[in-house]
């Protein structure tokens, strides 16, 4: 017994099966985590090696090169870039997306081990780091304080960070942008000289005093005591009172030094809305539910606030979960409207509530299965999966519509609903499965996409395949069952008379008129086949000419109400001057841009090359700003337009040499065109880059042109005379470490309090080290215990040190990156840049490539093009098998180019850029469009088999199939409409797809209904009927039969 007969015979069992599916689906939905994107780990591994004392060139030659040579052989490596700074080498390995990074990091570790033998002996072991999205903060708070500022770090650490770390799913919470506590011991060189002390002596005695030593145990009577020497400082006051032995007399440290327990002198400072403050960041564990973690954390911070001093204020800078929730709600709304539209369309066409209900019921069942799939595969509810559901909604009703229509036909003919359900389903169930197979043929290849596209579109491919398969299953089991229960045998007379005011009567009247009109059109087309076909072809080629007006971009950028600003000024500028300019920029921005809510500015540099300095460029001459603007609904301008205004403001400041304004979240969604200049000679590449930058400035839409290589660092260089050194019994390293102690400080000892450790920095007081002459006059104790001035040992000269050195694929390079302004597409900028380069006189030693996001875009488009070819092929195979013909699939697929015409027109009219998402929409059209053709051709073939003449068969079938085709097309289109119209949070991502699909559908549906019949009629003349005749000619046994002569009278002329 077939599936539909069983379903009709056992309605309760059938119902229970589907209720079970829905229940499991709803359960899965409740347990699914919510996130913005599918889980993805960026395939980057970074190797960092520090080699103190080496400058960038040394690092490049001795460290970076050695590491690169070994790392180059790691499997699945896509690209290797490196950056050599003073003291630090950073090699970044980019792998293919989807590579197992655990294996990759093992390989990297092996490679690093191998390279150890060729690295300098005294180098620290390189560290291997993996970057994952979970390192990106989900919550960023700006914290401001007034009186409590000096203790802010400690307060936050004790009261807030501790609490946050206890929240489920929080990976870490940390405070940045605040000065740490430190104990300074500022020495006066004159006093040192007077008492004949050296800085390292003082440093060493602090180190020697600040100690606890365990000295074993002593047995006293029955007791066992452990003996300890307690020397560690309990409070910083203790340091002041350290006694020093000078020539047999004791001296307190405070007599010769100023001991300050304070905050570190500013290096990197943060201002929140012009006030003292810092930034609190919360990151989540990679598999935690972002929305849940964020709301728990917010609640925890609320609780913590009650315990904090009242002057400490928290302000939200970024709340990733907020964007996710809004985007999700927006998508859910889209989903709801799609459902509503689909139901309305079905009702208008069928005109009966019962039928509409039967159809509408397939929607939730098909969609709920997607949740089960997501729960089983550890997926999450994210923008991609919800978008997939939105796409599926219009497609899942198609099969049910076909079945219901046929069953209704049988019922109207007088069958009992039960039999009608069985026969009706039996007639169409194969063609229903074939149309589903065509859809799967289009979407299944998506699940095989490699790279980042795969991470985004694999879930989409799976969800649509699963939803559509479920809908087919529902259509051949649940739908016939419901038909057998719900549809009523109608009295034929009542039907024709009807109630003149009923909706059914009204809608059928108009639909009937439409059918008539279409039949007249089709008959005209069949008489003018050549005219129709040629004019359609011309239309298609004309649309191809329009493609040059089409702008391309990689991935639509989201308006996340965030901006980040980077500005660089004169190299060597004091941080105080940077602060002054940053504050000026801040006030101009506030005055001109009313949308601004919070500006967090930071400037200055951290002393040591830290992880933070890898993420964003810092320096005394650099300021970074994070700007939060109003929510989308509260402002008229997009964040991209605001970014353009900010750029204008930055241009007005002559002090600012370079700037960059990004609109993405944490700068992750880069949208830049990078011109990569490869060449060994620094001077040559830098010169070329500067020339290129000047030339590119004239390109319209090219903003924020940045050269990646920094300007040369200004420095004071001490050249020691080796002969003099030898005479004094000194070495370069000895002098070097002494000078380092004077300026940078002697930092061996730590002050401990409440479980925290703070540096004790012993160095000269600032006034004794702020002039060149101070440095020249520094006293050095030579090998004979005599004091000698530094200037007697060598010269101090001003000079420049090489900047950091970037390499890619083992070659020195630099990039000139260009950000397209609002309204300009990356593809155009890349073309313009290429034109500029072609006109320039490129030195022979240099090679130039255009990369960046543009390169990714090209790769992805190539991948999509392959996918379209694969889909076309699969669709052809399925259809050729279905129709047992090579020609029919060809005729049906003629509609596909017109779908692309529609996409091009829709994108041009709505001014939407051609992005990967829009291209994906075009891909989907292959499946949707061929469906219409299948329905049409299938019926024409049927009519011809029943013996109708060709034109008659075509005209009648077209008339009869108009409604199902329009209905399925309209449901798909209207299902996408909310997506295309939506403008709120996150809409930028899916809007292009909606626009592309609707445009393509409108156009191709109209064209399919005209050109497919025309081409069918044109090609099918020597078709099946003629073939049958020629076959019968071989039946020679009736050759002598002449009906006029042989037949009896009553049989003649009938």
């Amino acid at each position, binding site marked *: 017994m077939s599936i539909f007969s069983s379903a009709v015979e056992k309605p309760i069992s059938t119902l229970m099966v589907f209720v079970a599916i829905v229940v499991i689906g709803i359960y899965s939905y409740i347990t699914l985590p919510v996130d913005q994107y599918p889980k993805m780990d960026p395939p980057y591994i970074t190797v960092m090696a520090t080699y103190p004392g080496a400058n960038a060139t040394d690092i490049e030659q001795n460290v970076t090169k050695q590491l690169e040579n070994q790392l180059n052989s790691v499997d699945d490596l896509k690209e290797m870039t490196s950056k050599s700074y003073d003291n630090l080498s950073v090699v970044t390995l980019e792998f293919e997306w989807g590579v197992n990074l655990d294996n990759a990091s093992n390989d990297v570790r092996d490679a690093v081990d191998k390279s150890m033998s060729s690295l300098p002996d005294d180098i620290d072991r390189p560290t291997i780091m993996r970057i994952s999205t979970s390192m990106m903060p989900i919550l960023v708070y700006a914290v401001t304080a007034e009186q409590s500022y000096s203790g802010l770090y400690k307060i936050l650490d004790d009261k807030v960070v501790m609490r946050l770390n206890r929240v489920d799913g929080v990976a870490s919470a940390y405070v940045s942008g605040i000065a740490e506590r430190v104990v300074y011991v500022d020495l006066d060189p004159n006093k040192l000289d007077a008492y004949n002390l050296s800085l390292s002596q003082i440093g060493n005695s602090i180190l020697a005093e600040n100690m606890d030593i365990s000295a074993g145990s002593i047995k006293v009577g029955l007791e066992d005591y452990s003996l300890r020497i307690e020397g560690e400082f309990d409070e910083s006051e203790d340091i002041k009172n350290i006694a020093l032995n000078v020539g047999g007399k004791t001296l307190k440290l405070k007599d010769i030094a100023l001991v300050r327990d304070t905050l570190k002198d500013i290096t990197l400072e943060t201002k929140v809305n012009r006030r003292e403050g810092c930034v609190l960041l919360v990151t989540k564990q990679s598999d935690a539910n972002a929305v849940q973690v964020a709301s728990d954390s917010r609640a925890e911070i609320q609780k913590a606030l009650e315990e904090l001093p009242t002057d400490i204020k928290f302000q939200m800078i970024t709340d990733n979960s907020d964007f996710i929730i809004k985007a999700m709600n927006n998508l859910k709304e889209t989903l709801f409207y799609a459902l509503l539209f689909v139901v309305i369309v079905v009702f208008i066409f069928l005109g009966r509530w019962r039928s509409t209900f039967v159809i509408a019921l397939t929607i939730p069942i098909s969609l709920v299965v997607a949740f089960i799939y997501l729960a089983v595969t550890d997926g999450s509810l994210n923008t991609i999966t919800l978008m997939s559901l939105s796409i599926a909604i219009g497609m899942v009703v198609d099969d049910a519509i076909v079945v219901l229509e046929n069953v209704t036909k049988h019922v109207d003919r007088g069958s009992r609903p039960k039999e009608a359900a069985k026969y009706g389903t039996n007639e169409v169930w194969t063609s229903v499965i074939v149309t589903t197979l065509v859809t799967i043929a289009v979407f299944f290849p998506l699940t095989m996409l490699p790279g980042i596209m795969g991470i985004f579109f694999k879930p989409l491919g799976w969800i649509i395949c699963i939803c559509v398969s479920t809908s087919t299953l529902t259509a051949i089991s649940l739908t016939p069952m419901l038909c057998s229960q719900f549809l009523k045998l109608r009295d034929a007379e009542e039907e024709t008379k009807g109630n003149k005011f009923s909706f059914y009567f009204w809608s059928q009247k108009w639909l009937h008129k439409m059918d008539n009109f279409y039949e007249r059109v089709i008959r005209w087309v069949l008489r003018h086949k050549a005219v129709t076909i040629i004019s359609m072809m011309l239309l298609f080629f004309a649309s191809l000419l329009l493609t040059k007006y089409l702008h391309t971009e990689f991935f639509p950028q989201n308006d996340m109400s965030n901006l980040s600003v980077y500005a660089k000024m004169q190299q060597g500028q004091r941080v105080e001057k940077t602060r002054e300019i940053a504050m000026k920029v801040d006030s101009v921005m506030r005055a001109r841009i009313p949308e601004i809510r919070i500006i967090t500015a930071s400037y200055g540099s951290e002393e040591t090359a830290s992880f933070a300095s890898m993420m964003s460029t810092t320096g005394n001459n650099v300021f970074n700003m994070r700007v939060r603007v109003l929510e989308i609904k509260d402002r008229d301008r997009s964040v991209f337009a605001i970014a353009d205004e900010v750029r204008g403001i930055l241009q007005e400041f002559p002090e600012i040499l370079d700037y960059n304004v990004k609109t993405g979240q944490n700068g992750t969604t880069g949208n830049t065109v990078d011109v990569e200049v490869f060449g060994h000679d620094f001077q040559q590449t830098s010169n070329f880059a500067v020339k290129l930058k000047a030339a590119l400035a004239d390109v319209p839409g090219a903003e924020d042109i940045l050269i990646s290589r920094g300007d040369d660092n200004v420095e004071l260089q001490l050249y020691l005379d080796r002969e003099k050194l030898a005479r004094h019994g000194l070495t370069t390293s000895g002098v070097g470490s002494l000078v380092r102690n004077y300026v940078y400080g002697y930092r061996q000892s730590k002050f401990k309090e409440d479980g925290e450790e703070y540096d004790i920095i012993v160095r000269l007081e600032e006034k004794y080290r702020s002039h060149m002459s101070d440095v020249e006059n520094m006293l050095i104790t030579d090998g004979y215990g005599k004091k000698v001035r530094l200037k007697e040992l060598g010269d101090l000269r001003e000079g420049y040190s090489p900047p950091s050195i970037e390499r890619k694929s083992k070659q020195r390079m630099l990039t000139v990156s260009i950000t397209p302004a609002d309204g300009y597409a990356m593809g155009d900028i890349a073309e313009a840049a290429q034109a500029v380069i072609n006109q320039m006189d490129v030195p022979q030693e240099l090679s130039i490539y255009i990369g960046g996001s543009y390169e990714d875009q090209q790769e992805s488009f190539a991948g999509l093009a392959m996918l379209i070819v694969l889909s076309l092929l699969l669709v052809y195979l399925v259809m050729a098998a279905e129709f047992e013909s090579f020609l029919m699939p060809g005729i049906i697929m003629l509609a596909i180019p017109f779908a692309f015409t529609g996409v091009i027109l829709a994108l041009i009219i709505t001014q939407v850029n051609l992005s990967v998402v829009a291209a994906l929409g075009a891909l989907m059209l292959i499946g949707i469009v061929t469906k219409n053709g299948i329905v049409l051709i299938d019926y024409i073939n049927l009519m011809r088999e029943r013996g109708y003449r060709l034109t008659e068969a075509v005209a009648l079938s077209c008339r009869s199939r108009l409604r199902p085709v329009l209905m399925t097309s309209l449901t798909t289109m209207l299902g996408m409409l909310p997506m295309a119209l939506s403008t709120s949070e996150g809409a930028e991502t899916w809007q292009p797809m909606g626009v592309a699909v609707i445009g393509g559908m409108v156009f191709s549906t109209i064209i399919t209904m005209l050109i497919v019949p025309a081409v069918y009629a044109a090609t099918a003349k020597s078709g099946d009927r003629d073939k049958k005749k020629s076959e*019968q000619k071989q039946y020679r*046994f*009736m050759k002598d039969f002449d009906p006029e002569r042989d*037949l009896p009278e009553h049989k003649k002329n009938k």
Partner: protein
Amino acid sequence: MKAVFIVYNQALTERVAYMLEQLRIKGWTQFPLVYGQGTNGGEPRMGTHAWPEMNSSTLTIVEDDMVDLVLKYVDKLDHVNQENGLRAFVWNIDKMY
């Protein structure tokens, strides 16, 4: 009215249908698969491993003057290849609805 019962090798199905169509005999009933064997050397048609072939049969009720015409072409068709096997039997129709 006479009933004409035509039994034939399945391979002849299309030719018999063609014949009826040419003779403008509109009404007929076909039994697509029947077993059987001929009296005069006709091979068994059993659809088994030993006798894999099958017969079909068509029953048509025609006017008396059509019978000879039908039988004439049945005979002609049989003579194209006698090994196929083709027979027609005629009997009277007493009453009809």
